[in-house]
C-alpha cells in the first residue's frame, strides 16, 4: 500500500513538509507505550499512536518507523513537527480513534508489523 493511499483511507492530514509520501508501506504497529514500540515493532512499520510527545519521534528514529499517525486528531507541537521533518519521518493526524484507524487499514490489506509477545 502506498503511504498516500493509507492517508486517504484514514482521512489523514499530513503535518510535515518535505518527507516523501510516494512510498510503499509494509505494515503497521499500534501502541501508546513507546517501550512496546521499541520492543515489538519491526523495521519500516507505520506507527499508530495516541501519544503526542517528542519521545514518539525519537522512538520512531530508533525503531526505523516509516511514518507516524496520531489518532483521535491529536496535534503535535511545532518542535515535534520540526524534528520529524528534519529526520524525514512523515507525521499524519487522523480524526478517527485507534480502533477505527487500525480496523480500516487492516481490512484494506495492511499487515501487522508487530512481533508476538514473548516472555524471553
Amino acid at each position: 500500500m502506498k503511504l498516500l493511499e493509507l492517508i486517504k483511507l484514514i482521512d489523514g492530514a499530513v503535518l510535515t513538509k518535505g518527507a516523501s509520501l510516494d512510498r510503499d508501506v509494509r505494515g503497521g504497529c499500534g501502541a501508546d507505550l513507546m517501550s512496546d514500540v521499541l520492543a515489538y515493532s519491526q523495521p519500516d512499520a507505520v506507527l499508530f499512536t495516541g501519544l503526542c510527545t517528542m519521545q514518539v519521534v525519537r522512538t520512531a528514529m530508533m525503531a526505523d518507523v516509516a511514518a507516524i499517525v496520531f489518532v483521535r486528531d491529536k496535534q503535535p507541537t511545532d518542535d515535534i513537527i520540526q524534528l520529524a521533518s528534519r529526520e524525514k519521518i512523515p507525521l499524519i493526524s487522523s480524526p478517527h480513534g485507534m480502533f477505527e484507524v487500525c480496523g480500516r487499514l487492516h481490512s484494506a490489506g495492511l499487515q501487522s508489523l508487530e512481533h508476538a509477545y514473548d516472555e524471553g
Partner: protein
Amino acid sequence: MDDEPLRKDRIITDGAANLISRVEELAYELTIDEVMTRDLKAIAPGTKMGEVMETFREARISGAPVVANGELIGVVSLEDLIRALRESNIEAPVGEYMTRMVLTVNARNPLIEALKVFEQKRVGRLPVVDDDNKLVGIITKGDITSGVMHALEYDYQEEEVRRYRARHLFEDIVSDRTSLTLRYKIQHGAFAQGGNASSHIKRALLRLGASPQIARRCGIAIYEAEMNLIIHATHGGMIRVEIEPHRILMEAIDDGPGIYDVDLAMKPGYSTAPDSIRELGFGAGMGLKNIQRCVDDMYVDSTPGRGTRLELRINMQPQESLGDATHKNLTDGGA
C-alpha cells in the same frame, strides 16, 4: 500529473524515481530566498528602452523589476524590448512598455509556491518580496533549476563524504587494537532532550558502516538506557560507547539512587516511575527487558544509594564488522 510517465517509451529506473521524488521534496524544503537572485538590476520607469537593452546585454539578463520611489510597479522583459524595437520606439520610457503587474512571491515561502505561479501564469520571472512587501530579489525558472541541482549535489555529497570518511577510520589508523569512544552527558529530568544522545550514537554507527540491523539494536538499547538516566539518575549520568570493528560496548553510568533489587527491576511490568513518566510513553517496567532483548550481553552493577552501571555488548559477525580491512583480515584469516 497523475500516474502519467514522463515519456511513453522510457522506463524510469529506481534510481531515477528516487531522484524525482527528492526533487519534489526539495520544492517543499527549499525556500524562495535560498535560490533567488538578490543582485537586483532595478530600473526606474523613466529609463529609455534603449538603455534597458544595454543593461540587459551587460548584465546578461532577460528581465528586470521596475521600481519607482522604492515601490515595485512592474517588470520589463526581453519581449517588451522586442515590441519597442519592432515599433522603432526605443527612445520611449520603460513605463510605456513594461508589464504592469502585481504578481509577486514571498521570500520565505517554499519553492513550490513559485513553481505553481510559473505553471499557472505565463511569466518568466517573479519579483520576490519580504513580509513588508518590500522587493528583495527576483526568481526565474532557471534559478529554481540551479538551486535544486545544487541542493541535490550538496545533499548527496555531504552524507557520502561523512560516510566515506567515517567508514575508513578503522583502516586508516593502524594499531594492535583500535577503538572509538563516544561520551555523552545526560541530565536528570531533561525529557525534551531524551533520545538526543541515542540518535547521535545510531547515526555514528551507520556512518561507520554498521548494518541497519546492528544500528537499530544499539539505538533501541541505548535509548531505553538514556531514558532511564533521565528518569531515575538524580544527578544525571553519562553514556559511554566504545566502538571496535567487531564489537560495540555501551555503558550507562550514574551515581543515582541505585537499583535495590535487580531481578525485580528486570521483571516485565515492574516500575518505580511516576505517572508523569508514563505520560511520555515510558516507565511501564519494560526498559531493562527491552535492552536485554537487543544486546548480546548485559551486566547491571548497582549499589543502593551509590549508583548504577549498565554495561551492554553487541558482537558483530565477521561480515557485519566495521571497516573493510578488518573484514578482509577476518575472512581471509589475516595477512
